[in-house]
């Protein structure tokens, strides 16, 4: 069964119409891409599938232009489309879902790692088991407006009941969702890290570099004189330089638990394997706290990162340099540990010493009675 048959006769008419009504062509895209958008930039085109479902064929040209794939052009993913035979030669599918799954296979060509990880994920497994809702690549990233902006926002779009489910067993669940990325718990095999992101209290969002005005990497490198990652003093210096004396609303680093490699965000496991033991994080030297970076959002949303040493998390100076990040266990301060031991020894030592002196004086007291 072919859906394209009705189009064969009218292809020429359509082509003419497209050329007449085409919107302003984008200078940033190639002529080939603009030709495609000549038809696909319009409302109204749609494709009908075997089961009677239909798919709107409009592609938002402006969004595509702003996407990571804009330089690649339409042809990078739609090499099967030949303008001469198109749209007549289009393949047919039973459903929008079948079409979507088949098309997402193209991502593998360039993102083999992500593809492989995803294949082993709970979503791919559910899809193979017949779930009509479990996402493929485009379910989380979309197809034509892919940006490096975090894809985690999409999780709650489908899992709107997730927060309530976590509240059943996770104390302060809302706070955990804010500071721990979903994959840090749901990709248990992946390695984690502490990402200290600069937060701007004036705008109440993450501080971001403006396009064409890079400063963060240069500043971080100049502060990190020996290039071995920021130590406690260097971090203090960095914070001071970011907030010159008298800053009304000083920016501060806020910590998040992220994966060390974003690709591993695809290794999502079944919920039974997800991390639920508190002390994976809440213990001294916990795995996520052994790798620390400071970061600022780049102009495209991709984080610009600079390595930092693990010891900055528990340093005494963190009260000043990291006032807004503290997680029990992972950020424990050795100085407070020492004070605690002193308090224990002093608290036990005073009674024992005092008792000993009283005992030494016992005869003297008896003689005075």
């Amino acid at each position, binding site marked *: 069964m072919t859906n394209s048959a009705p189009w064969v006769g009218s292809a020429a008419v359509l082509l003419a119409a497209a050329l007449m009504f085409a919107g302003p062509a984008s200078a940033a895209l190639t002529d080939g891409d603009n030709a495609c958008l000549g038809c696909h930039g319009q409302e109204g085109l749609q494709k009908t599938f075997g089961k009677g479902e239909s798919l709107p064929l409009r592609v938002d040209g402006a969004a595509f232009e702003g996407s990571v794939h804009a330089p690649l052009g339409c042809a990078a993913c739609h090499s099967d489309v030949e303008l001469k035979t198109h749209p007549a030669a289009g393949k047919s599918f039973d459903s929008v879902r079948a079409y979507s799954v088949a098309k997402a296979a193209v991502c593998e060509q360039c993102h083999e790692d992500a593809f492989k990880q995803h294949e082993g994920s709970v979503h791919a497994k559910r899809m193979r088991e017949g779930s009509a809702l479990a996402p493929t690549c485009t379910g989380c990233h979309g197809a034509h407006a892919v940006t490096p902006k975090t894809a985690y926002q999409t999780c709650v779009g489908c899992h709107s009941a997730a927060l309530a489910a976590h509240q059943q067993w996770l104390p302060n669940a809302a706070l955990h969702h804010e500071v721990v990325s979903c994959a840090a718990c749901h990709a248990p095999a992946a390695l984690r890290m502490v990402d200290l992101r600069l937060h701007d209290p004036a705008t109440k969002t993450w501080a971001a570099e403006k396009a064409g005005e890079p400063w963060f990497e240069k500043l971080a490198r100049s502060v990190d004189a020996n290039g071995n990652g920021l130590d406690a003093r260097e971090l203090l210096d960095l914070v001071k330089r970011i907030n010159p004396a008298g800053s009304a609303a000083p920016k*501060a680093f806020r910590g998040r638990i992220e994966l060390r490699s974003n690709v591993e965000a695809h290794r999502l496991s079944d919920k039974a394997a997800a991390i639920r033991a508190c002390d994976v994080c809440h213990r001294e030297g916990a795995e996520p706290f052994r790798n620390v970076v400071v970061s600022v959002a780049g102009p495209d949303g991709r984080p610009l990162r600079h390595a930092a040493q693990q010891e900055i998390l528990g340093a005494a100076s963190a009260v000043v340099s990291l006032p*807004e990040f503290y997680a029990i266990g992972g950020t424990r301060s050795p100085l407070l540990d020492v004070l605690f031991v002193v308090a224990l020894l002093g608290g036990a030592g005073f009674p024992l010493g005092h008792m000993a002196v*009283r005992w030494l004086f016992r005869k003297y007291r008896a003689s005075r009675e």
Partner: protein
Amino acid sequence: MTDMQRIYVHPLPVRIWHWANALGFIALILTGVQIRYVDLIGLMSFRAAVSLHNWVGWVLVGNFFIWLGFYLFTDKIRVYHPELSPVKHFRDSFRQLQYYGYGIFKGDPNPHHLSAYHKFNALQSMAYQIIMLLLVPLQFVTGVLLWDLKRFSGAVEFFGGVRVVDTVHVLLFIFFTAFILVHPYLASLGHTPSAHFKAMITGYEEVDE
């Protein structure tokens, strides 16, 4: 030890508050240590320690108001009235220190004479006021903020951030750990080692005529 008179120094609400507070403090210290040192101690799981710590914390916050309410609404608050003459207060404190650090060894009498409205010596009166009106409330406030950082994010920010709040909480915890070790020992320095403990149970202290 001839003629002993019994005077009522610890009214019932104070005794209830005191023992609940003592047990609570010990529980908070143990669970606090467990929360902080999961890698070293295994009294209970981290999760159990957190939830026990929070429950006991709230009970003690309530308990604190028994203490505060009792003193605010009875004339017993006079036991905490400060000595208005700084010179006298200073002299009394010094004498008391001298007694604990020297006189007690020689068998000198305790310079402080207890009565119903004068149950604390100068050192105690000052130390307890600092502890009960400053340190304990600060421990409670920081604890409550840490209990729900999101709900209290405004207050946390006001205090300078979660790290600051937690550091204050831990510094006070360190102080209270030393306190809980020294306090019972000092309480055993009455005319008999168990005298003050009994008094905190019965309410009556025995004093020389």
